């Protein structure tokens, strides 16, 4: 049993048990306080809300592990959504068939990849700081998007696309399936591929990684390209959830993705981070906010609680570290 536990910790990270404890605590407290909390309907709403933030967090995760940052995730997602919306509107609008959707999706993913690749190339070959580069990209995409949409909404998509945003398969929301699939892909990339290995090494010490023969520049370009692709997936999901695209949709989520990464034990200085703890952290955040919502709390209050939650987790981690150090010494 302990061997199994150890293997699980080795595979998924030492953060997982603590975060699961937190999740259990949150479920318990709200379960007692709010009678409707532990109902299928509430979990259904969590399951529909989580994926958007989740996909954007995955897009933020890889740059952060590499010691970087991607501030452009929201507008990359918006631009990808716009691309799909444009293709759908050009080829039938509400009557569009499956082909415009497929072509539009491929183009949307391409736009996300391009946005990321440009950032990655500038970061890798010019040596500029990721925050500056992604900030520039963020402002560029926002301006471009607002220019193209004249600040308005784009809507008028085929009815059947609602399946993507609101449908269920065997009772499981489609967005959740999409998110979990992406999370598994991300887990495999980060833990089991040469690229994922390089991401961590680049995050800890890029010069030493280069001295060891890691192609650090290519690694950086790929990190931001993949991040851009993940943004595009999020953008497509947002399009089908809201049945419209507007530049600025999801703006408030930008820093929440960073919060989720750090809650999930990602090292703010780069080099360390795993997918599963981040996913659990996301669930904790979402459950927390839906619980507060059920208790009738203001939505702004739930944002405040998220902030407090991160501070609390940092204090607990500090305490746990002190404790284990003391154990080691005695």
């Amino acid at each position, binding site marked *: 049993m302990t061997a199994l536990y150890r293997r699980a910790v*080795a595979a998924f990270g030492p953060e997982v048990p603590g975060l699961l404890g937190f999740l259990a605590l949150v479920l318990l407290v709200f379960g007692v306080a709010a009678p409707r909390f532990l109902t299928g309907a509430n979990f259904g709403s969590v399951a529909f809300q989580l994926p958007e933030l989740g996909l954007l967090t995955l897009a933020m995760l890889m740059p952060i592990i590499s010691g970087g940052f991607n501030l452009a995730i929201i507008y990359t997602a918006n631009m990808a959504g716009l691309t799909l919306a444009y293709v759908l509107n050009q080829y039938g609008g509400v009557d569009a068939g499956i082909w415009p959707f497929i072509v539009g999706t491929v183009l949307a993913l391409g736009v996300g990849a391009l946005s990321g690749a440009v950032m990655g190339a500038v970061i890798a070959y010019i040596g500029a700081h990721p925050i500056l580069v992604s900030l520039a990209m963020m402002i560029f995409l926002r301006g471009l998007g607002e220019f193209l949409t004249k600040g308005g909404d784009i809507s008028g998509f085929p009815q059947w696309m609602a399946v993507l945003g609101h449908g269920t398969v065997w009772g499981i929301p489609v967005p959740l399936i999409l998110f979990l699939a992406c999370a598994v892909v991300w887990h*495999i990339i980060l833990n*089991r*591929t*040469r690229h994922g*290995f*390089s991401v*961590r*090494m680049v995050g*800890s*010490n890029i*010069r*030493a*990684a*280069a*001295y*060891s*023969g*890691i*192609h650090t520049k290519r690694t950086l370009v790929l990190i931001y390209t993949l991040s851009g692709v993940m943004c595009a997936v999020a953008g497509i999901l947002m399009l089908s959830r809201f049945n419209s695209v507007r530049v600025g949709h999801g703006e408030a989520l930008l820093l929440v993705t960073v919060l989720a990464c750090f809650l999930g034990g990602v090292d703010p200085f780069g*080099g*360390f981070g795993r997918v599963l703890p981040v996913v659990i952290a996301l669930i904790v955040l979402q459950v927390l906010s839906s619980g507060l919502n059920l208790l009738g709390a203001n939505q702004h209050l739930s944002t405040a609680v998220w902030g407090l939650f991160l501070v609390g987790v940092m204090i607990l981690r500090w305490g746990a570290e002190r404790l284990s150090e003391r154990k*080691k*010494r*005695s």
Partner: protein
Amino acid sequence: MTAEARSDALRLTHVTKIFGGVTALDDVAFSVGAGEVHCLAGENGSGKSTLIKIITGVYQPEPGAGMQIFGQDYPRITPTQARMAGIAVIWQDLALFAEMTVAENIAFETLLGNRPRPVSYARLRADAQAALAQLDVGLDLDARLGSLPIAQRQIVAIARALVSDARLIFMDEPTASLTQSETDALLAVVRTLSARGVAVVFVSHRLAEVLDISSRVTVLRDGRLVGVYPTEGMTQSRLTELMTGASFAQGVMARDTASQPEVLRIDGLGRAGDYSDISLTLRAGEVLGLTGLIGAGRTELCHTLFGMTRADRGTITLNGRDLRMTSNRDAVAEGIAYVSEDRLALGLIQPQSIADNAVLAVLRKITSSAGLLSSQKKEDTVSHWISELAVKIGKPSDAVSTLSGGNQQRVVLAKWLATEPKVLILDCPTVGVDVGARAGIFRIVRALAEKGLAILLVSDEVPEVYMNADRVLHMAGGRIVAEWDPRQTGLTDMEAAVYA
């Protein structure tokens, strides 16, 4: 009080320090005479730093210790009291402000006070000037510290200690990054200090340079006092024996390798500003030493051989084939490995695990046919090299930074040997490695050579290449100026030529 006790700058008795069950110091005595130049010798982990931290009040010793500074008893001492008593420590990293001027660095403590008050730059400069005058050294007071070479920064650190009236100065590894002429300049300063009655304690595990001007040496090993010896007649090898408790009496390892096949050949290699007209051959199973002062172009040459920079002219031939490399990945693919001189920043990725560091250069080899990294192959590679090189580790998943210098260097070697190189370039492989562990590293190097690996051993420590290389090249000003056979040219002749 006896006359001798009164003339002591520092007298410690029965100093013991226990950290959570680990005895760092065990009943150690230590004394320094006023104006004496003293050596405190011991390997890393022998308790030198703990002792200094007790003297400067950073740590408190276990009850029963006695401490007397300039004749006054201190049952316990705080860092402030220690400074007031005239004790100063110049750590290896110097703890100076790179962005401030020489004068500000020397005299900034005179600016500190409880209340804000205007800064008198005239007084600041006068104080700094006076301190430098005491050392008989002239430095530009307005130069930005960061623009000065290490040797001059060290002078600044000493001058700063004098400003706060230090009478007993500890210098931590003072000569580690100095060239011979810089070391000589430092020793002159120390003589001046000593003549003015300021005692100086050199703390080091590399004492050849300072042995001459010190009167006594205190040797620590594993937290215990080995003894206090006069330096008269003391040799580096005897000192090494005392520090490690083992004898490393070792002859010259050089053998004749002229009959071996040529592996690497360099013809007329040059790169503007770095090196020029470099020609050499390296044979299978040969350890070729390359020595010279810092700045001679050794590391720059290594970088070109490792594909990290391009030469302007000349050719590199490996096993008879011209090499055209555009990156170090090409070099690794061709079978060239490079152990960097900067293990901390470039050789290893310190926060990451031992296992990850060991497989860093062979990710392709531990990839399964499905394109995913195989944890089985990784484990096999790691455990193979850890046992092959006898690396002492806890778990392979521990951060590599938890290892000692010697074991870290073995992990670096493991990383590169896993690439199955034909040529191994070792750039100062024993920097920050204990005397005892150095011998272990060189045993590995010799064993690798005997298996046919061609090794280029670069070092600024002439004895190292003299002892361990089959041939020695001397590099100066970017050129190779001499070739020696250690069996024919003595160490003193080599050192005289290199340090001239």
